[in-house]
């Protein structure tokens, strides 16, 4: 089994989670690698996507696990020969079993590009607030709100933007909602296409955040990267 780390960028940032699965299947079919299929009436490729990425957000750290019996080096080379440029592979690990990243990832780093200028110091102090209630519209409740303070783990602002480490996965903060709240409070503007996910984390049994790459390094029998 292979876990692949890949990026999502350019036009591909507008590909939804469901369409992404179709992309992965097509890319893998083009590789003609011996990917395993499910049994039964309507067999499908055994591909496990990681946590979702909101539409319009770029990423340098997406993960997918594929049930295929080849070395990481071969997998990565074949994948990169057949994938859309916007989903280029970065690294591959041979893992003994599906690490179920969609279930265990609990935080991620993001970069929000935007001209913060002199406001950066004030924005940077957000992390210290005991509570930060922002508009968090959902389909069901367009006027919903959410206190995101407990979900913001680290925040560092500079003149050109903001780095945030916050909840992702099953409990999550939508980057766009956070941006909108900061924009309206501080009168700043972020680039609409300037959000990038930089890293994903799992919680160790001790409660610390550990980079998914490190976790996979610990798990893997073999690894390849570009």
């Amino acid at each position, binding site marked *: 089994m292979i876990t692949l780390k890949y990026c999502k960028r350019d036009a591909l940032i507008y590909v*939804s989670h469901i369409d992404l699965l179709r992309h992965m299947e097509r890319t893998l079919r083009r590789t003609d690698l011996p990917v395993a299929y499910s049994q039964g009436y309507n067999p499908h*490729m055994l591909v496990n996507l990681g946590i979702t990425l909101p539409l319009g957000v770029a990423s340098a750290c997406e993960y997918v696990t594929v049930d295929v019996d080849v070395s990481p080096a071969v997998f990565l080379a074949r994948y990169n020969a057949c994938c*859309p440029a916007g989903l280029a592979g970065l690294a591959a690990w041979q893992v003994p079993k599906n690490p179920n990243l969609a279930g265990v990832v609990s935080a991620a780093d993001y970069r929000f590009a935007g001209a913060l200028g002199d406001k950066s110091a004030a924005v940077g102090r957000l992390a210290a607030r005991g509570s930060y209630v922002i508009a968090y519209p959902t389909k069901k409740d367009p006027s919903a709100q959410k206190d995101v303070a407990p979900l913001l783990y680290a925040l560092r602002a500079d003149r050109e933007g903001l780095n945030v480490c916050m909840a992702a996965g099953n409990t999550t903060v939508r980057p766009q909602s956070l941006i909108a709240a900061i924009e309206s409070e501080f009168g700043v503007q972020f680039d609409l296409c300037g959000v990038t996910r930089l890293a994903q984390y799992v919680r160790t049994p001790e409660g610390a955040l550990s980079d998914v790459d490190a976790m996979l390094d610990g798990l893997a029998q073999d690894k390849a990267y570009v």
Partner: protein
Amino acid sequence: MSSYQEIWSKVDKPARYVGGEYNCPTMRKEGVRFCMCMPDLYEVGMSNLGLRLLYHRINDMQSAECERCFAPALDCAALLREANLPLPSIETQTPLADFDMVGFSVQYEMLYSNVLYMLDLAHIPFWAKDRDERYPILVAGGPCAVNPEPFAEFFDIIDIGEGEDMLPEIIEVYRKHRASPNGYDKAAFLRDVARVEGVYVPALNTPEARSVVKKRFLPDFENAYYPEAQLVSNIEIVHDRAMVELYRGCANGCRFCQAGFYYRPLRYRSAQKVADICKGVIDRTGYAEISLGSLSTGDYPHLRELLHTLRPEADRRHVNLALPSLRLDTFDGEFSEGARKSSLTFAPEAGTQRLRDVINKNITDEDINRSLTLAFRQGYNSVKLYFMLGLPTETDEDLAGIVEICSRIRALYRAETGKKDVTVSVSCNALIPKPLTPFQWEAQISTQEMLRRQLLLKNALRAVKGVTFHYHDNTVSELEGIFARGDRRLAKVIEYAYRHGACFDGWTEHFKYDVWKEAIAACGIDERVYLDSQPLDKPLPWEFIDCGVTRGYLLRERERAYRNEATPSCLKGCQGCGCKCAAIGKGGGV
């Protein structure tokens, strides 16, 4: 000031506008720059095989590049207008007006308003006469070119027939004119390009001074261009699969069917060729499904051989082979083996044998029984039936025949399986008498009469258990009928309707019948002229186009229709329609 980037980030489904699809060539912004437009949403336009073929065909040329543009959804159009940004191409976000040539593929009549919608958003004048050398050359093609007259004056060039060779030739003529030391002169270019076979230049070839335009087709379909490395959409599209044609043309000659006559002559691809293409397509696209397309797939003489050659590889790669348009009388248990046994689709088109002979749908009641018995034995329990209403000579007895077919299917199912759980879905479309068919002179029945027949059928079908009935509001068919047999006077109707709010007319929720009626009245048009029966002794507006099938043949077929006489399939021998199929020859057979 908004940028395109900002607009895309605000619209529904931005992927429609930003490109970056797998197999999308890198643009150098050099040579003749062509923008291929489809006046429909991305998901529909990208599903079109013709667009994929021509797009890659041009991009494979040394001297030209092709980009794409689709009709933006209304939310996107509103933002473009607000920002006063012209509609751009997908690949390099270049405004359409900055291209050398802009091509429109017009798939059906209800897209005419969307052509203007796109031109409007692109800040390009609608009428060819209002565009000088500063504007791109506008080219139209696609199935509607059978009768291009209603939209002819919007375009500089109309491609009649298959574009794979014609379009590159047009581009070549353009390139030479652009490079001319005396400077580019649009009028001189048009005079020159009119000599390319298949090219119709409406400004030079007018109803007052006609010359014949010969439809273009690829004589060697076996080796015709096919891009194995074709665009793979980033988002789900309507036909999200590869399409490979088995052959062009149709041997059956159903008398209502424009495609059946327009795409003649019959030209087949060998099984080996199709299989090779399909294998290449799997490698280069990764699609999970390949549709083996043609007008009547069951008539493909090499189907068995093809499936035999292709299926092992398709199975190994988990690729589904879809066989659309299987005719009832060719349904053969073997072809559907391994397919999901859900629903079976048949198009008897008419309810009685007499009427099927009139329209030359060569299906008998026995065919229906035999095929369905086979199908039920294999486990099918759902049947979809397509019929047409408003066929020439149709009476209420023929409608009763539809009901009877449904009852018989239920009885058959019961006899075969001992069960009653079969569902039958009946869909009825209106006959629209189309150019280049033996019915091109017939009257189209009125919306009122259509409603009567629809209700009659609806009530009668209620009595049969397990049957659902689908039919369409006839107002759309009425307009389609007007434009199908329209002439140049209708261009101003299209313009009026667009200016008063018509667009996306193909989408039921956007179709504005009242606007179109108002447009027709405002332009002083009597719609009966187009809907009534047409005189046999005068040339029809599209008859300056030589499609290969002769007027005499169509007239003969019309007479046979009125005598309830069917005409055999070309596979039993050439019927002498005039287009001289090399694949059939005098002796018949393949």
